[in-house]
Structures are given as C-alpha cells and as structure tokens.
C-alpha cells in the first residue's frame, strides 16, 4: 500500500478541523486574558475577565440575592428542570406509543419539531404565548376555564419566561428522546415481558421494574446529549427572549452571554472568557465520551 495514501484521504478534513476548530480553540483561550473593546488584543488583564464574570457581573452570576440569578444560574435551572422533564416526557410517550397500532403516526407528530429550526419553533411558541387572548392560544384557553382570568405575558415576565422557554424546548426535543428510547424498548426481548406478565405483573409494574431498569444505559446517553444541548443552547433564547435575553435579561444563558458580550458589546476578550468557561464545563463530558468510546472499541 502506498504509504502516503491514508494521509491524502485524511488531509482535507484534518486541515479544515485544525485551522477552523483546533487552532481557534487555543487562540480563544489566549484571547480570554485580554480586555478592551473590539478585536484589538493589546490590553493584557490576566484572569480579570474570569474574576469579573464570576464575582462582579450580575447578568452572568449574581449570588448576592436569593434566589441567585444570572446566566449561570439559568443554565443550572435548565439542567435540573429541563433535562429530567424532557427525559420523562420522551420515555412516557415512547412507552405509550409502543402500545398502539398507530404508533408510526404518533411518533411522526412528536418527532416533527426536531426537524424544524429553533427559530421557527420559537415563533410557534411566541404565538402560543401571546398576551392577547385573541391571538395566543394559552391565554385564550385559560380565560375560558378560569373565571376572571387576566391574560398573562408569559415571555414578558421575569419569573415566567424561563419555564415558558423550557416548555418550548421540551416540545422540540421530546421526539429525540422518544426515538432513541423507543428503539431501546423494542430491543428488550419479548420473552422477558411475557414472563413478567405471566407471573402476574401489571402494566405499570412492568414499566417500573423491568423496562425502566433496562433503559438506564440508553437514558444516560440521551441525558448526556440533552445536557450538552443545554450548555450550548442559544437560538431559542435569542428568538423567544429577544436580543436582550428576556425582560431584564432574565432568560440569559452562558452561550447567550458569549454572543452578546463578544458581538453586541464588542468585548471580544470578555466574550472569549465566557467561551472558555463553556469549554471547561464540557470537559468532564468529553472525558466520559472518550472513556465510553474506548470501552466500545475494545469490546
């Protein structure tokens, strides 16, 4: 075999990845210790950007009040509320859809939001949440079933915007969880379920004692994917919360701060520090994936 051949095959991809991902990643780490405006990196500030982000930027992290607020806190809220919620909804749908004959149609409907952009999904949910009950379905439904109901500005309220966007994100991603879990469910041997049924186990018992435990490895993979989604999420916040990230920036997340600081506020060094924080957060997941990959490659 020609010894140069492998390199010819790898070269275009390797070159693009090296120049546009690997090298810029190291360069951004370097930029994160510079201050000032724009793309002039002459003002070396050491770790000041990080110190300011973590102690003196209430939009990023504000521990001085209770409950604490800021982009980091919002990301944590997303992690602890959104991730379990989307997993639960996806699993429930997968299990229910598995029991009916029109499974394919149901799955297509649930999966559909996965195919469209977060931009379009954001517009769809802004319409649902519209404060005018003659436009927004949610306020219209509530004013029918709750007497004396005053329309609520779901995305205009500091307290409601995060739950409102989380619901939209569950609507988008439950289909992803459902598809993966559904495939895993079908991988459980029929004999196992039959045996449990014969032994007198009820539907909910089979679900809780047999299906869920057998799904744990799949769920952990899906959970990691959703956690990465949360850490990187930007589009949905930008569309549903606007350029300011919601009223008083209440919906800002870390990736949103990175964009706003770098491009709207023109603080490229400060924004780079935010990007470095994102990288630090994903490094444990990276290590986990590499370990999983090596374990998979050996077996």
């Amino acid at each position, binding site marked *: 075999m020609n*010894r140069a*051949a*492998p*390199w010819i*095959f790898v070269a275009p*991809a*390797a070159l693009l*990845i090296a*120049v*546009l*991902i*690997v*090298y*810029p990643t190291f360069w*951004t780490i370097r930029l994160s210790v510079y201050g000032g405006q724009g*793309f002039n990196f002459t003002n070396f500030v050491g770790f000041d950007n990080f110190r300011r982000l973590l102690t003196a930027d209430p939009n990023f992290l504000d521990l001085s009040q209770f409950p604490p607020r800021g982009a980091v806190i919002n990301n944590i809220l997303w992690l602890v509320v959104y991730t379990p919620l989307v997993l639960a909804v996806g699993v429930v*749908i997968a299990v*229910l*859809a598995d*029991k*009916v004959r029109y499974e394919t149609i149901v799955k*297509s*409907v*649930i999966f559909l939001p996965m*195919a*469209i*952009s*977060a*931009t379009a999904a954001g*517009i*769809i949910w802004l*319409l*649902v949440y519209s404060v005018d009950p*003659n*436009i*927004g*379905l949610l306020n219209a439904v509530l004013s029918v079933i709750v007497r004396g109901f005053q329309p609520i500005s779901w995305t205009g309220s500091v307290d409601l915007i995060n739950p409102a966007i989380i619901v939209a994100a569950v*609507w988008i991603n439950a289909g*992803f969880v459902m*598809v*993966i879990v559904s*495939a895993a469910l079908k991988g459980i041997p029929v004999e196992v379920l*039959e045996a449990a049924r*014969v032994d007198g186990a009820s539907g909910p018992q089979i679900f809780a004692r047999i299906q869920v435990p057998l799904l744990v490895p799949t769920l952990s*993979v899906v959970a990691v994917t959703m956690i990465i989604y949360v*850490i*990187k999420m930007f*589009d949905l916040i*930008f*569309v549903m919360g*606007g350029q300011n990230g919601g009223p008083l920036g209440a919906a800002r997340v870390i*990736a949103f701060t990175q*964009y706003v600081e770098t491009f709207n506020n023109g603080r490229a060094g400060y924004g780079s520090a*935010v*990007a470095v924080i*994102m990288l630090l957060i994903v490094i444990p997941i*990276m290590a986990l*994936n*590499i370990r999983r*990959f090596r374990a998979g490659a050996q077996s």
Partner: protein
Amino acid sequence: MSAAGATLARRRRTAVGTRLPEFLGRTPVHLGILFIGALWLVPSVGLLVTSFRPSDDIHSTGWWNALVNPHFTLDTYIRVLTSRGTTDSLFQNLLNSFVITIPSTALPVFFASMAAYAFAWLEFRGRNWLFLILVALLIVPIQMTFVPVLQLFNAAHLTGNFLAIWIAHTAYGLPFAIYLLHSSFSGLPRSLIEAARIDGSSEFRTFWRIVLPLSVPGIASLAIFQFLWVWNDLLVALIYLQSPTLQPMTVGVVNLLTTMGTQWDLLSAAAFLTMAVPLVVFFSLQRYFVSGLLAGSVKS
C-alpha cells in the same frame, strides 16, 4: 409438555380470554396518546392557519376561529416574498438559504467520507489518537472558534462572501460527519475490501467504487442531518454573514421579529416558509433520519 410449550399455551389462552377487558383497559392509553399527539400538533397548526388568514382577522380573532369559519388568503405569502425595505427581501433570504446549505452539505459529506474511509480501512501512524481527538472535538463548543475564525476570514478578505460560511459549516460539521460515517464504513465486510486490494484496485478506486456505493444509507442520513443543521442554523449565520443580502431565512425571520415586533401576519408566513423545506425533507426521508439518529447517539 416442555416449559416453553406450557408458556406458549398459557399465552394463547390469555390472549383470547382477555381481549375485550384488555381493550377497555387500554382506553386510558389511547386517550393519553391522542391528547399528547394533539398537544404536539396544535402549536404548529396554529402557525400554519395564522399564515393563511387575512391580516385583519389575525389581529382581531384567534386562529382557532378560522377552523369553524374558514376565510383564507395567500396575500401574506405574496407580501412576504415580494416585500423589500427595512427587513430586506425574505425571498432573497430564502434563496440564500439554498445557496448556503447545498455546498455546506456536499463539502463536509465528501471530505468526511474520505477521512472516514482512512480511519476505518487504512493503517497509518497516529490513527487511533487522531480519532480520539475527533471524539473529543464532537463536544467542543463552536463558541470557542468564533473570534479567531472571524479574524482569519478578515485577513483572507472572506467576510461578506458565501465562501466564509461554506468553509465554517464544513469544518464545524466534519467531526460528527466523520464519526457517523466511520461507524457506517467499518460495518462493511473486511473480505470485500481485501478482495479489491488483491485485485490491484487503488485505494481511491476501492473508496469510490466499493465503499461509497455500499454505504449509501449511512451517507444519506448524514447528508440529511447536515442539510437540516445548516438550513436551521441561526448562530453561525449571525456570526459570519453580516450583510443582509447574504443572510439566510432564519436570520431574516429574526430580523423581522426585531424590527417589526410581533406582526403575526408576516411573521407566521415567514416562519412557515423556513419550516417548509425541513418538513419536506423530513417526511420524504424520515427512515434515514431516524436510523442516522440512532447510529449517531447510541453507538459506542
């Protein structure tokens, strides 16, 4: 009677004896699943219906009124596609989406196929290490690259040019693309590749004539992913395409939202136009989409 035979007989008995109660017992399942299905469908239907209603109707009565009292028009779509001015032309944005997406799909699929072939079937020093780096790069936030890549594009005079976003999307798509195709290619039988080599086939010929044709399903699902990813992208386009004449549909819709506020007539039609292409792709190629999803996230 063997144990298996006994189970089988019992199973048959339960199947016949419990059909009616079982059906009734399943009513909650049916109701639950129909309710969830409706919950998932209604928001999109709302947008679709709104986009076909006359502007006056949209702002005076809820879209659900149009279901009992239908009154539809194509006016908004015509306006969206022909209007020019502060929001620029959404028709231009729609064309741009195609101009951006097609090369940004073809290039990474091709380069990733080549690299994945080398990783799957060729021996070279550092192969395993390079692949581990690739697995790590799958998760690096693209935010780490924006400023240096912009500086690079500025220096190379690529800003204000589609070439910039083609290159960016190609690079950003490569780690996942190589990863996905590697698992697809390495599933091919070893004997096939070796037979080709013994017959004196060059590596490029083996790749082009044997590996690619046999991996069409894997390549198709990757192409669909990349297509949807680029078509639906907002962030990368915001960063690398500042000129309104180059921006894709997603940015056009966001511009509409920021400049005009919640003007539901224009907004709903524009949003539905951005959705139309992914929906067509999704419904015609759903099988590849789902198989790719499973290969990409569950394997290894």
